C-alpha cells in the first residue's frame, strides 16, 4: 500500500505557549485508509489535523520541528491552493465554513479557486451532491438546510476538490444522532471510494468502522493500531478522555466472554452463550400527564412565530415542569428546543398562549426579577464572558442586580466551590480551556441562585471526563433543590441524568414522560432523529429496566443470585 501521509517527529508549540501542543508525533497513513484520532480536550488532535494540511505552521505562528509529507512532498513547500488539492480540511463549526448563497455555489467555490473550467465544475457538483445526498438541492439557500445537511455540504465542498486526503476535525459534535449517522455513513462511502480519510471524533462507536485508531494524550501519541484492539481497553480510553463502549463495559463487569463492539454483536453473544434469562418486553406506560400544580415553569397552548416569518416555529406547546425535576429537552437540530427554552426567562414572548413561571406570566415580571428565578446558560460560553477575572465574571449578575459586596463575595465563593473552580478566582477567563470556560459560565448563572437553571447544550465540545464532571455537578445542584433543564444531543447524558425527557420535532412535543418510558419507544425517537445509546438499545431488547451500565450490572446480577 502506498503511503499518503507520513509524519516524522513532529513538534509544535504555539506562540506564547509554554508547552508544545504536540510532540514527537510519528505516523503513516496508507492510501485509502480510514484513520480515527481520539483523545481528551487539549490533547493536540486539532493541531495535528491542521499540521496535515499545512495550516500549522503557515497560519499559526509558533515553533515547528519535524516533517509532514503529503504524497512525498513536505507540507511547508506547498502553496495554499496546491495544498487544497492534496488535503481537504473539514472543521467542527459548519456555520463558519459555509459562506455561499446556495448549495451549488458552495461546492463551486473551491473548484473556481483551483481554476477548473465551468463545465467540469458543473459535472463535479452533480457527482458530489449525489454522494452527500443533497441531489436536487442545487439552488437551495444554505440557511434553510438542517445541521446534518450543512455539515455534509461542508464535507462535499471539500471532497469535490478531490484531494488525496480528507481530514475532518470533530465533524459530528454539533449534530443530532441521525445527522451524525449521516456524516458517519458518508465517511463509510468515502472509504469504499478508496479515499484516504482522517477523522477526529470522541464517541467510540465512530471508531468501530475505522481501519486504524490513534489515541492521543497530552500532545503525545499513546497508541496506534487496529481499533478493535484498543476499544476493548476501557482504562486506556478513559485515560484519554474517551467514553468507553458501553457493550464492552457491560461484558467486563459481568465477567462475560467476548468483546462486542456493537449492540448487534453483544446480542448475538448473549443469545449464543445463553447469558441472560429470557423475559417479556416491558410495556412502559407513557405517562404524559404530570398532575399537580407545583409547576415552576408551565406552558399553556404556547405558539411562537419569529417576526416576519410565515410559519410557527412552536405549535401549541403544553407542559409543566415541577420544582426539583431534572428535565432533558431532546430533538433534532432546528426542532425548536432553544426557541422554547428562551421563553422560560422571557428572552422570547409567546405569539399566542402563555408561559408561566411560578404561576405568573413571564410578561408580568420585570427582567431582573426573572433573572433571579431562572438562570440560562448559553451554548457557547464565549457569548457572555467579558470580565478580566473569573471572580468578576461570576459576580457580574449579582452586581447588576444590585447586591452588596458582602453577598456577592459569599455567593461567588459558593458558586465557584460547587463548579470546582476554587483557585481560579483571579485568573483571566480567556486563558482557560473550553471546559473550564463552560464552568465559569455556569458559575456566573449559579451565583444568582436561581430556582431553575436552563442549560443549552452544556457538553458540546467537552471530552468524556469533563462531560461527566459537568453533569455530576448539575446532579448535585438538582439534589440541593434546583430545577435543572438541559437541552442536549447526547443520548447517554439524557438517559443517565434526566428524570424526564421532552422530545420535540418540528416545533411540537411528540413525547414527554419518564426518561425510561421515552427511551423505550425507539420508533418514535427515530422520527425525532434520535437514537438511544447502545446500552439502552440492548436494555430494550433484553427487556431490562436499566439505562446505564451500572444499573444493568445490578439488575442482571440480582437475577443470577435469584436463580441460584
Amino acid at each position, binding site marked *: 500500500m502506498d503511503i499518503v501521509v507520513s509524519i516524522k517527529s513532529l513538534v509544535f508549540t504555539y506562540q506564547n505557549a509554554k508547552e508544545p501542543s504536540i510532540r514527537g508525533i510519528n505516523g503513516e497513513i496508507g492510501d485509502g485508509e480510514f484513520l480515527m484520532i481520539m483523545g481528551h480536550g487539549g490533547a493536540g488532535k486539532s493541531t495535528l489535523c491542521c499540521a496535515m494540511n499545512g495550516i500549522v505552521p503557515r497560519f499559526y505562528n509558533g515553533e515547528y520541528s519535524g516533517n509532514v509529507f503529503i504524497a512525498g512532498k513536505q507540507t511547508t513547500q506547498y502553496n495554499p*491552493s496546491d495544498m487544497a488539492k492534496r488535503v481537504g480540511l473539514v472543521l467542527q*463549526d459548519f456555520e*463558519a465554513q459555509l459562506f455561499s*448563497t446556495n448549495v451549488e455555489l458552495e461546492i463551486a467555490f473551491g473548484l*473556481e479557486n483551483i481554476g477548473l473550467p465551468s463545465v467540469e465544475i458543473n459535472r463535479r457538483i452533480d457527482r458530489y451532491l449525489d454522494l452527500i445526498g443533497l441531489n436536487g438541492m442545487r439552488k437551495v*439557500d444554505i440557511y*434553510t438546510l438542517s445541521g446534518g445537511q450543512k455539515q455534509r455540504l461542508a464535507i462535499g465542498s471539500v471532497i469535490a476538490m478531490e484531494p488525496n486526503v480528507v481530514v475532518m476535525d470533530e465533524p459530528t459534535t454539533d449534530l443530532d444522532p441521525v445527522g451524525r449517522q449521516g456524516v458517519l455513513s458518508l465517511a463509510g462511502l468515502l472509504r469504499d471510494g478508496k479515499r484516504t480519510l482522517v477523522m477526529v471524533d470522541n464517541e467510540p462507536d465512530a471508531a468501530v468502522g475505522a481501519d486504524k485508531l490513534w489515541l492521543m494524550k497530552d500532545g503525545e501519541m499513546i497508541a496506534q493500531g487496529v481499533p478493535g484492539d484498543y476499544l476493548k481497553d476501557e482504562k486506556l480510553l478513559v485515560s484519554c478522555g474517551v467514553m468507553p463502549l458501553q457493550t464492552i463495559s457491560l461484558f467486563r463487569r459481568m465477567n462475560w466472554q467476548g468483546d462486542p463492539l456493537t449492540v448487534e454483536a453483544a446480542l448475538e453473544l448473549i443469545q449464543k452463550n445463553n447469558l441472560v434469562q429470557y423475559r417479556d418486553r416491558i410495556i412502559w406506560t407513557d405517562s404524559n400527564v404530570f398532575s399537580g400544580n407545583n409547576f415552576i415553569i408551565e406552558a399553556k397552548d404556547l405558539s411562537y412565530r419569529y417576526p416576519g416569518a410565515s410559519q410557527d416555529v412552536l405549535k401549541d406547546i403544553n407542559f409543566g415542569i415541577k420544582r426539583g425535576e431534572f428535565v432533558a429537552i431532546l430533538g433534532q437540530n432546528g426542532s425548536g428546543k432553544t426557541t422554547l427554552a428562551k421563553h422560560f426567562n422571557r428572552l422570547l414572548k409567546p405569539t399566542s398562549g402563555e408561559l408561566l413561571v411560578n404561576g405568573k406570566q413571564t410578561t408580568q415580571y420585570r427582567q431582573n426579577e426573572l433573572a433571579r428565578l431562572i438562570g440560562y446558560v448559553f451554548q457557547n460560553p464565549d*457569548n457572555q464572558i467579558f470580565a478580566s477575572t473569573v471572580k468578576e465574571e461570576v459576580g457580574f449578575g449579582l452586581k447588576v442586580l444590585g447586591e452588596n459586596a458582602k453577598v456577592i463575595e459569599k455567593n461567588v465563593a459558593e458558586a465557584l466551590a460547587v463548579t470546582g473552580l476554587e483557585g481560579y478566582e483571579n485568573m483571566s477567563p480567556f486563558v482557560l480551556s473550553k471546559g473550564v470556560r463552560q464552568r465559569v459560565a455556569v458559575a456566573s448563572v449559579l451565583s444568582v441562585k436561581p430556582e431553575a437553571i436552563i442549560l443549552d447544550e452544556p457538553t458540546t465540545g467537552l471530552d468524556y471526563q469533563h462531560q461527566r464532571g459537568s453533569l455530576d455537578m448539575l446532579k448535585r445542584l438538582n439534589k440541593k433543590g434546583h430545577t435543572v433543564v438541559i437541552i442536549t444531543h447526547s443520548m447517554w447524558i439524557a438517559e443517565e441524568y434526566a428524570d424526564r425527557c421532552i422530545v420535540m420535532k418540528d416545533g411540537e412535543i411528540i413525547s414527554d414522560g419518564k426518561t425510561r418510558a421515552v427511551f423505550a419507544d425507539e420508533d418514535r425517537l427515530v422520527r425525532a432523529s434520535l437514537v438511544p445509546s447502545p446500552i439502552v438499545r440492548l436494555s430494550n431488547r433484553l427487556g431490562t429496566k436499566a439505562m446505564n451500565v451500572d444499573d444493568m450490572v445490578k439488575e442482571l446480577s440480582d437475577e443470577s443470585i435469584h436463580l441460584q
Partner: protein
Amino acid sequence: MNLSIYSDDKTWLHSLDPRTKLFGTTIVFIVCLCFNHPLHTGAIALCMFALVLSAGAQKAIWKLRYIILMLFLFSAMLWPFFTSGKTIVWTWKSLKLTRESILYGLAMGFRLSTFVITGLILMATTKNEEITDGLIKMKIPYPLAFAFSTALRLVPTFVKVGATIVQAQVSRGLDLESRNIISRFGKFIPLAVPMFISAIRYTNLLAMALESRGFSPDMQRTFFYEPTMTKRDWIILSFLAALLFISLYMRIILNMGVVMPGRI
C-alpha cells in the same frame, strides 16, 4: 430567523449582468444627488419603489422597513432646523422654520430612503458571488472584490451573534431597559468584549475554511457563473447613461429641481 437579503427568483433584474446592476446603482445614487426638491427626489423614490415590485424585493424592504422609515422621518424632521431659506413659516425664539428648509428636509428623507432601497434591490437580486465576479470583471483586484462581498455577507452573521450576546447578558440580569445614559455606558463592555472575541474567532475560522478550499488572493481563478453582457444589459446601460446626462443637464444648466441652490 433568516436575515439574508437575497431572494432566489428569476425576474429580469436577477438575470442582468452584475456589472449592469453595479453601474446602475451608482447612476441612481448620482441622479439622487442631482436634485433637492422633494417632488423630484420623491419621483425617483417612487420609480425605485416600482422597481422593487418588479424585482420581487418586497421581502427585503419589509425586513428593513423600520430603518427606512426612521431614516425618512429623522431627516424630514431634523434637516429643517439646520438649514435656512427665505420664506419664514414659523419662529420661536432663535428657532425658525422656512418653507424651503421644510421642503429640503423632505427631499433629503426621500433621498436617503432611495439610497437604502436601491442598495436593497441590488442585494435582493444579485448573489454575493455575482457581486464578486462583477467587481473582478470591472478590473477591481480580487482581494478587494472578495473583501467587499464578504463584508456584505458577514453583516447578517454578526447581527445574529450580537443578538445572542445581548440575550446571554440579559439572562444574567443586565438591564438594557433602563434609561440612564451613564449607566448605559457601563453596560457597553459586557456586550462589546464578547462581540469582539466572537468576531475574531469567526474570522479566524473563516480564514481557515477559505484556505482549505484553495483560496489565495493572488491566484488565477475561473468563474462558475460567468457574467456575460447581453443586448438587454447594453440597452439598460444606455438608458441609464442618458438618464444621468439629462439629470446633470437639468441641474447644472437648467437649474431645475432645486429648493436650496447652494446645496447638493
